[in-house]
């Protein structure tokens, strides 16, 4: 029996009030619209009004399926969902594998799709022969096997990891041709489980004069970074699990440091040594790569925080619109300073803005998925998103960002790192064919 007071007529899209110009609809009205509207928006194809044909059983519905495998593999129809590789032949330089955000959804990056950067190849570490030593300015140096760490109280948390050089092609004076994977593929988000670093440091007994620690990996080049003890005591983990399974090799198997919200390079992978010290070591990566140059010729040092940022994943280059009508604009927002408080989206290059719905749960230093309903009228549109975090930081507008940080003299490669720590706006221009291109607005 239906309750007449709760009955609703199917809302018409054209009855949903506008929230901003060029087709952005009110998210609250839209959510109230319920299943009918949501169903019409599933996938990236507009619901067509033409009648469907009569249904029949497909061949796979008429016979037994395959045998379960011990390790589940994705459908063979999903083989196009891959990371892009910057150095597939392992030449003597860094290798980057970028996350295909436009082919994923939600807030958790699958382990096979999590971005990785390795500077000297991925080591093949025998976990029974790996250990972590804590020493330097401590009362008693300690050595931990993986077995020993596995007996410690654990903590799980969602956290994004972002390379300090992610999005760097957006320092270009002209829009670089590329999609969300090229431009923003060096950030991912997972649930990490491990032991609080503070627990281990407390057991070792940190000298009050130790203000920094060196974290070092067991890879060939022993990648090392200096980390403030304050961060180590705050929310650092020695992570052993990634989305419920042991870390992937490219993400630091069998253990990595996890510094939520800090530039990815500091979350040292293959972690084998922590040394407490009284001054920053000025290792290669803090001396050179992650000290971004400013137009004045001075450089920012110890940038650490990946500041508030967002970008639209759907639509984005490679996901052409299939005709006029209703679409969901969706994307990812995150901040190294805490939770996302608000995301606004624009369909007219930033002239008018509508508030997007935030997918719960909204977690600190983790991906937040935002969604906003949009009706494309077939005309030109420029889609943008802008995020704010709970600490009150706003994602900077491009003009404001470039005024402070500058732009490159020449157009960089889409895989290049001309500078670091870009967190301004990304614009996607829609042409009349529905093609989506990276643009500035």
């Amino acid at each position, binding site marked *: 029996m239906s309750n007449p007071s709760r009955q609703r007529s199917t809302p018409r899209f054209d009855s949903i009030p506008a929230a901003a110009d060029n087709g952005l609809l009110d998210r609250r009205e839209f959510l109230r619209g319920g299943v009918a509207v949501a169903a019409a928006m599933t996938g990236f194809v507009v619901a067509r009004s033409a009648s469907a044909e009569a249904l029949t059983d497909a061949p796979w519905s008429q016979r037994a399926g395959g045998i379960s495998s011990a390790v589940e593999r994705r459908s063979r129809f999903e083989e196009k969902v891959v990371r892009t590789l910057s150095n597939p032949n392992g030449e*003597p330089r860094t290798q980057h594998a970028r996350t295909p955000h436009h082919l994923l959804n939600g807030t958790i990056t699958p382990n096979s799709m999590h971005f990785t950067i390795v500077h000297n190849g991925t080591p093949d570490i025998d976990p029974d022969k790996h250990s972590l030593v804590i020493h330097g300015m401590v009362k008693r*140096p300690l050595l931990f096997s993986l077995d*020993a760490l596995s007996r410690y109280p654990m903590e799980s948390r969602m956290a994004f990891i972002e390379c300090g050089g992610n999005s760097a092609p957006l320092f270009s004076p002209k829009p670089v041709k590329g999609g969300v994977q090229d431009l923003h593929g060096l950030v991912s988000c997972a649930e990490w489980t491990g032991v609080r670093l503070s627990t*281990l440091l*407390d057991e070792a007994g940190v000298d009050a004069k130790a203000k920094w620690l060196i974290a070092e990996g067991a890879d060939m080049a022993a990648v090392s970074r200096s980390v403030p003890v304050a961060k180590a005591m705050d929310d650092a983990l020695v992570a052993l699990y990634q989305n419920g399974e042991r870390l992937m090799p490219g993400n630091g198997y069998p253990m990595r440091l996890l510094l939520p919200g800090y530039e990815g390079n500091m979350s040292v992978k293959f972690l084998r040594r922590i040394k407490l010290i009284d*001054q920053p070591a000025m290792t*290669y990566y803090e001396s050179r790569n992650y000290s971004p140059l400013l137009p004045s*010729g001075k450089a920012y*040092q*110890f940038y650490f925080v990946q500041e508030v940022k967002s970008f639209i994943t759907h639509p984005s280059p490679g996901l052409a619109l299939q005709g006029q009508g209703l679409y969901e604009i969706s994307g990812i927002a995150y901040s190294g300073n805490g939770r996302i408080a608000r995301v606004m989206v624009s369909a007219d290059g930033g002239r008018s803005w509508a508030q997007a719905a935030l997918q719960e749960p909204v977690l600190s230093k983790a991906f937040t998925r935002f969604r906003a309903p949009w009706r494309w009228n077939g005309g030109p549109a420029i889609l943008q998103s802008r995020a704010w975090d709970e600490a009150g930081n706003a994602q900077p507008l491009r003009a404001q960002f470039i005024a402070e940080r500058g732009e490159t003299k020449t157009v960089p490669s889409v895989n290049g790192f001309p500078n670091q720590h870009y967190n301004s706006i990304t614009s996607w221009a829609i042409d009349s064919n529905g093609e989506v291109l990276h643009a500035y607005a």
Partner: protein
Amino acid sequence: MPTRNFLLALFLAFAAGAVFADSPNLGQAISEADIKAWDISVLPDGSNLPPGSGSFALGARLYAEKCAGCHGPGGKGGVNNQLVGGEPLNSRIEATKTIGNFWQQATSVFDYIRRAMPWPNPRSLTDDEVYSLTAYLLAMNKIIAEQDVMNAQTLPKVRMPNRDGFIIRFPEKI
């Protein structure tokens, strides 16, 4: 509420370096002597620099043999980073960062060569060889003279040209 005696006991336990009573304490004790092979980090004040020394002449020979293939003759850059020279840093925000125009601490050069170079055989050089390559690269950048010998005493005293070129981004995070 903890009693005063309990707090006193806790204080004494800490003062004696005792282990945390409520923590698993599953780490094995290990001496700094037994960590030595891994303890390769050098600090800007020269802490942990090893004994030994190196000179430009040996450094030039080693560089040509082991480094020039990737970093170009004389450190001018190749398939991998340029190490010598470089444009003024205010010329463009993507200016090439070299040891000469960018690095803040001379000790970082020693640390990185010893830790990570040469590809693919890091930690194959003797400490004298690492000092020599450091001396070569500093001299090629005209930061020291060709006759200057680099060792644990001289290297931390080398003043890098861009030493004051940095702004700490978030001082409150340190």
